[in-house]
């Protein structure tokens, strides 16, 4: 998989007026709700430190914790599978479906399953995966894909959704009232929940000590998927582990406040193995690598694996809030996507993503697990430069560096620039420049090189 270059993709998205208006309104709302509930907690910074430390500990001891998790989960009656990549994970889920003669599964909203394109893999195996999260359902019905981690259909408005429902699950629906739209999806989904023989979920957390899986959600559809069908398959990225059950105390405070700006999320489901006569009678847990052990090898980059997918960094990002998620061309958009995707799929396949940031640092400021996103971005930019090898930019940067290493050369360069700008400068401003600098002058004037530089003024003082 290769991500198409961000600058052009972003330019395309920026032209979508509806998208920009929706994004601004939605991210503003979530952002200020988040700020309000975070400000309520006197120990927020201590919680962030704790979250970051627990995650760092998990990554340092991942090998033992995974085995501990497998042992505990197996003892509680779960079947644990290990998947090196998306293809292996998909094959495992498809096989389980086949063994149970299942051709339809109900799904909890899950980025991990999107990452491995599980729905497509299942479709090839003759199994229909039904998304049950309201927004995910909308996207699935329309063959569209998510543009926000938390609000996947942030780029859609309610009239569009009404029209879509009229074409698909609710022929004849005329109202675009949110309650009516929700009711239409409810009627459609209830039927699927009740007949489903198999549910598929991702996970927010897995507890090594107990083998417990945890899903945090708002709508309750997730709980339907994880409790009604007799067979349940949960796919866990290996970085989702927490050492102890008590660690949830930290993360169940950090996540909802950062994510939806709520003190507590409406539904937190936890399950440990199987319980006779209650809930699914067969539980499979797939532990997924898919590039994560490679990320783990990079000392600077590995902190991206701390991410709890709260999406707070998206909502404060000056880039994301203008372009939306599709411009990033990956399942993980925004600042976290810019540092995680290139590491998961290889920098050569997503080399423009680390540059899709102004380095403003707003993401780092809100991240509940203190991922130093700007630092990782710089680290990945250096890798992108290395991977690209010889290039015009590299040569230019070398020459610029060499010029800066001598005041004499720098002074000469100032003089050359002053002469070179003559055809473009008027009244101390440059209004048009040739490519690649035309990128600047498309929306901005450029201050011209001064007649007298500071250094010559100082020298003549």
């Amino acid at each position, binding site marked *: 998989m290769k991500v198409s270059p*961000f*600058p052009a993709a*972003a*330019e395309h998205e*920026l032209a979508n007026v509806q998208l*920009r208006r929706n994004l601004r309104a939605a991210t503003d709302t979530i952002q200020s709700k988040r700020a309000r509930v975070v400000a309520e907690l006197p120990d927020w910074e201590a919680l962030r430190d704790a979250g970051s430390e627990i995650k760092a500990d998990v990554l340092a001891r991942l090998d033992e914790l995974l085995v501990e998790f497998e042992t505990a989960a197996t003892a509680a009656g779960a079947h644990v599978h290990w998947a090196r990549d998306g293809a292996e994970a998909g094959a495992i889920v498809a096989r389980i479906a086949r063994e149970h003669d299942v051709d339809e599964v109900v799904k909890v909203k899950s980025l991990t399953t999107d990452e491995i394109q599980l729905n497509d893999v299942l479709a090839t195996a003759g199994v229909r995966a039904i998304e049950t999260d309201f927004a995910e359902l909308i996207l699935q019905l329309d063959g569209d894909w998510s543009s926000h981690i938390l609000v996947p259909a942030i780029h859609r408005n309610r009239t569009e959704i009404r029209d879509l429902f009229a074409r698909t699950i609710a022929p004849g629906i005329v109202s675009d009232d949110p309650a009516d739209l929700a009711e239409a999806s409810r009627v459609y989904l209830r039927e699927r929940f009740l007949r489903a023989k198999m549910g598929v979920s991702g996970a927010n957390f897995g507890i090594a000590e107990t083998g417990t899986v945890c899903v945090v959600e708002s709508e309750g559809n997730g709980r339907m998927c994880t409790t009604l069908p007799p067979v349940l398959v949960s796919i866990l990225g290996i970085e989702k582990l927490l050492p102890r059950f008590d660690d949830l105390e930290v993360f169940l405070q950090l996540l909802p406040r950062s994510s939806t700006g709520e003190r507590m999320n409406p539904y937190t489901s936890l399950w440990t193995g199987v319980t006779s006569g209650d809930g699914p009678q067969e539980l499979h847990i797939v532990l997924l690598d898919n590039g994560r052990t490679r990320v783990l090898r990079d000392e600077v980059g590995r902190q991206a694996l701390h991410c709890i997918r709260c999406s707070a960094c998206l909502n404060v990002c*000056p*880039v994301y809030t*203008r*372009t939306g998620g599709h411009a990033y061309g990956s399942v993980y958009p925004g600042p976290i996507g810019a540092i995680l995707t290139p590491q998961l799929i290889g920098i050569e396949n997503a080399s423009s993503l*680390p*540059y*899709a*940031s*102004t*380095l*403003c*640092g*707003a993401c*780092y*400021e809100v991240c509940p697990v203190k991922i130093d996103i700007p630092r990782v971005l*710089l680290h990945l*930019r*250096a*890798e*992108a*430069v290395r991977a690209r090898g010889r290039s015009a930019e*590299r040569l230019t*940067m*070398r020459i*610029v*560096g060499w*010029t*800066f*290493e*001598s*005041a004499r050369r*720098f002074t000469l360069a*100032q003089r050359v*620039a002053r002469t070179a700008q003559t055809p473009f400068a008027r009244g101390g*401003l440059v*209004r048009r420049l040739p490519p*690649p*600098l035309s*990128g*600047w002058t*498309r*929306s*901005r*004037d*450029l*201050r011209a090189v*001064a007649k*007298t*530089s*500071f*250094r010559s*003024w*100082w*020298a003549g003082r």
Partner: protein
Amino acid sequence: MRIGLFVTCLGDTLYPETGRAVVTVLERLGHEVVFPAEQTCCGQLHANSGYPDEALKLVRRFESIFGSYDAVVSPSSSCVGHVRELAPELAPRVFELSELLVNRLGVEDVGASFPHRVAYHPTCHSLRVTKVGDAPLRLLRNVRGLELVPLERAEECCGFGGTFAVKNAATSSAILADKCDAIEASGAGYCTAVDGSCLLQIGGGLERRSGGVRALHLAEILAATESA
């Protein structure tokens, strides 16, 4: 006190008046300012673009030029933040102008007069990396005749981001448009900040819009002695 002035490559070339204003303010307060002529660039451009080796070379060069001063001052908070990170030994002696005045020299009133409405844009690096806090605001509040007007979404980025402004020109322009809207809506005649690079972006956007609002570095306001 003998203060070394790091005027920055951008300031030296495009905004000499900012550097001159720093000299004016500090000399007015009775300090000796020295401009070491060997200086060029701190290496931030290279560090932010993925060339850490070149960046480190330039930071080392900076250290050898400024190592002997009691204090180093620069009108660019992002350069200060960059130097502090890569030259930890020098870090306690390197200041952005407002930090030097308020925190090191304990001055909040520099005897300036600027009878205009001014909006202050806290740049991302001054806010989150260099952490100058409210030092610029304390100085502005003591400028005679100056009316400080609130700026909507003040803490949001202006969209500059170094090479981002050219590499991702469309996105950078979209972010800038919102910043310029907010500045124009504030009713200010001037927008000020403590980073020449952000002022290059904001000023360039404001000039292009011809709305009659100008971008001006904090140092130039502090140097002004205009009467109403």
